[in-house]
């Protein structure tokens, strides 16, 4: 009986919370450019002098977020996406342990995979911390791999929303299967 009453109270509170709560609205497609290779960026860059395009696809489910991070070798995102594109090497990686603080609109997640330019054949852990500011996501990607030369290296990014949560299609969620890291820099993140 006590448990039933507790369930009833919980359900009532949950209904009230649900009526008042709203999400941080970080879902959708966010795009931005990594700075050119140099002192401000030595972990994410393309094979040429052209800046690397970053695309973050986020889906928000209450306090959880998930999605993927995709790298483009072209900064204007004009290339057709195929299995080997936008970048044949380190095309994309899934987000892990994604959380969003609804109050502060702060998003955090972890990536596990290679980094185009900086660590093309390694399988690094990278932590992402972003803050939503109007229609922009501003934050950093920081390598969290103790023992690796890129450990604690970070890159600051400013991403702009190009698609809302409801406009994300199945194509944006496709990410090629991870290959064999030992064979070279041809696999995406896991």
């Amino acid at each position, binding site marked *: 009986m006590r448990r*039933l009453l507790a369930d009833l109270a919980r*359900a009532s509170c949950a209904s009230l919370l649900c009526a008042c709560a709203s999400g941080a609205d970080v879902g959708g497609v966010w795009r931005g450019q990594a700075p050119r290779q140099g002192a401000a960026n030595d972990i994410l860059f393309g094979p040429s002098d052209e800046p690397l395009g970053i695309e973050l696809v986020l889906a928000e*489910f*209450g306090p959880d977020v998930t999605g993927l991070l995709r790298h483009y070798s072209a900064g204007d995102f004009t290339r057709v996406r195929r299995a080997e594109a936008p970048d044949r090497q380190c095309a994309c990686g899934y987000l892990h342990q994604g959380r969003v603080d609804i109050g502060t609109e702060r998003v955090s997640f972890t990536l596990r995979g290679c980094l185009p330019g900086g660590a093309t054949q390694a399988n690094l852990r990278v932590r992402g911390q972003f803050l939503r500011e109007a229609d922009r996501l501003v934050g950093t990607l920081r390598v969290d791999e103790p023992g690796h030369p890129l450990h604690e290296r970070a890159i600051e990014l400013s991403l702009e929303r190009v698609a809302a949560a409801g406009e994300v299609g199945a194509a944006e*969620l496709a990410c090629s299967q991870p290959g064999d890291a030992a064979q070279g820099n041809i696999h995406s993140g896991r």
Partner: protein
Amino acid sequence: MGACCTKRSTWAETGKPWRRRRNGSRIAGHWPLRRPLWLCLALLLALGLVPPGAQRAHAQPAPPAVLLTGDVPDAAKRARVVVILPIKNDIVTPEDLFAPDVVRPSAALPAVIEATLHRLLALQPYVEVRGVAAVRQELADDLRNQPIARSAQHQYRVGLEQYLGLATGPAAVSLQRASELYRSVYYDLVDAKPVFDAQLMYGVALHDLGRAADSHIALKDAFLLQPDRRFRPSFFPPQVNTALVNALVDYRSSADPLQPYGDNQRLRALATRLGAAALVLGSVRPGTEGPELHLAVYGTQRRVIEAELRVPAQGSNARIDAFLTRWLACAPVTVSQPVRGGRRELRLDTSGSYALYLRQPTRKSFHSLGFAAGVARDLAPGLEWFGRVNMYTSLSDPYRDLLHAFNSVRVMGGVGFTWRRGPLRLYARPGADVHVLGSFIASRDPDCKLFGVDHRRCDPATVSDLDQRILMGGHLALGGHVHIGRNFFFLLQGSGSVYFLPLAGTERLNFPLSAELGLGYRL
């Protein structure tokens, strides 16, 4: 049909239901048997019950009786509990008040009349008679009454000791309290003597206190309890004897002989306590040509004195028989089931419905909206069976742990216990609940939500798949109908279920609560 016609024609004649008869009896709702036939026919014509040509055919044999709307079939009639209360003996005159040894032949009349009433009522159909002895026994054995009666007895003793100790003021308080306690449990019907004694001594105490007016009222009330009480001349001082005589004279001249047990409110409470449909009460009083019997019937349904009789007490059996027969012919019938138009009611309703689950695999409650249709039919008074179908669409929760909205169907059935008062009809319906879920799939893993449950990123262990599952369990609904005119009614209902089958599955989704608001129709 004859009774109906008789009743209506007399309404038309007199314009009021009460009509004093030549022999002194008055019957509520009763009219003389000899009435103009044309008046009956005219009334029936006005009601559209017979065609115009039937006026010329009134001499032909009557067709077989059929039930009219509102008539009650014999099978549905239930015996009315008629309780006979002790007949009061008001024969004692002021001259006899201080002559306790004088025995008048009329002293035995109340017992004779009580026996006559019992015998005659027992012959009537659909009547369950309870005699004076049974009523006394029932009230005396009532466990609720016994401690109050003992308290009253204690108060009386205390009051008497205070009075003898010359503490007259406190004595009056105690004696008044004793009298009130006795009467609150109707002890004046069980044994009037101690109640009378308490009231009498209360009046005497008031007299000693110099409150003559209050004393007079108290003593008069004492005679209402036991009007045939008498005293030895030397028991009280002369001034108290004078007060007693004055009180008796006043009582005999002003007390209503048809209400020897108080007003209708007290009779109603007594009838409720005894479970009686009617109370037969009365008193024997001196008349111009010998003792007269004043008889009345209090009906609990109308809550009024339904019939009255005033006849010479000697040889009154035939009059009493006629009186009782006429009263029973017009008294409301007690039916054994809710009857409307001579059959059990069937109720149909539709309603909008909202539901949520107290136990669910999602972190936040998801809401279910839908509609319901129900049917219920009376089985017996206060009992019905019911069946109900609810169709819900359950919407995704705020965290979207419920992967997509789904539809489900609930079928419920069982019996209902009903309580009706005026336009309100309340019920409690326990029963069974069978819930057929649609594609119910839930997960708290955001990857399952975004990429789908078949994706390699989705951990199958986090998925609650109750797709097409059937849950079964117990159900309880509490609600009510408010009749809004003709045969329509509003419905408001709250319900809950507990699923216990299948054994695996109810731990993830259980305890649905629902609320419904709708409109119904009774057939």
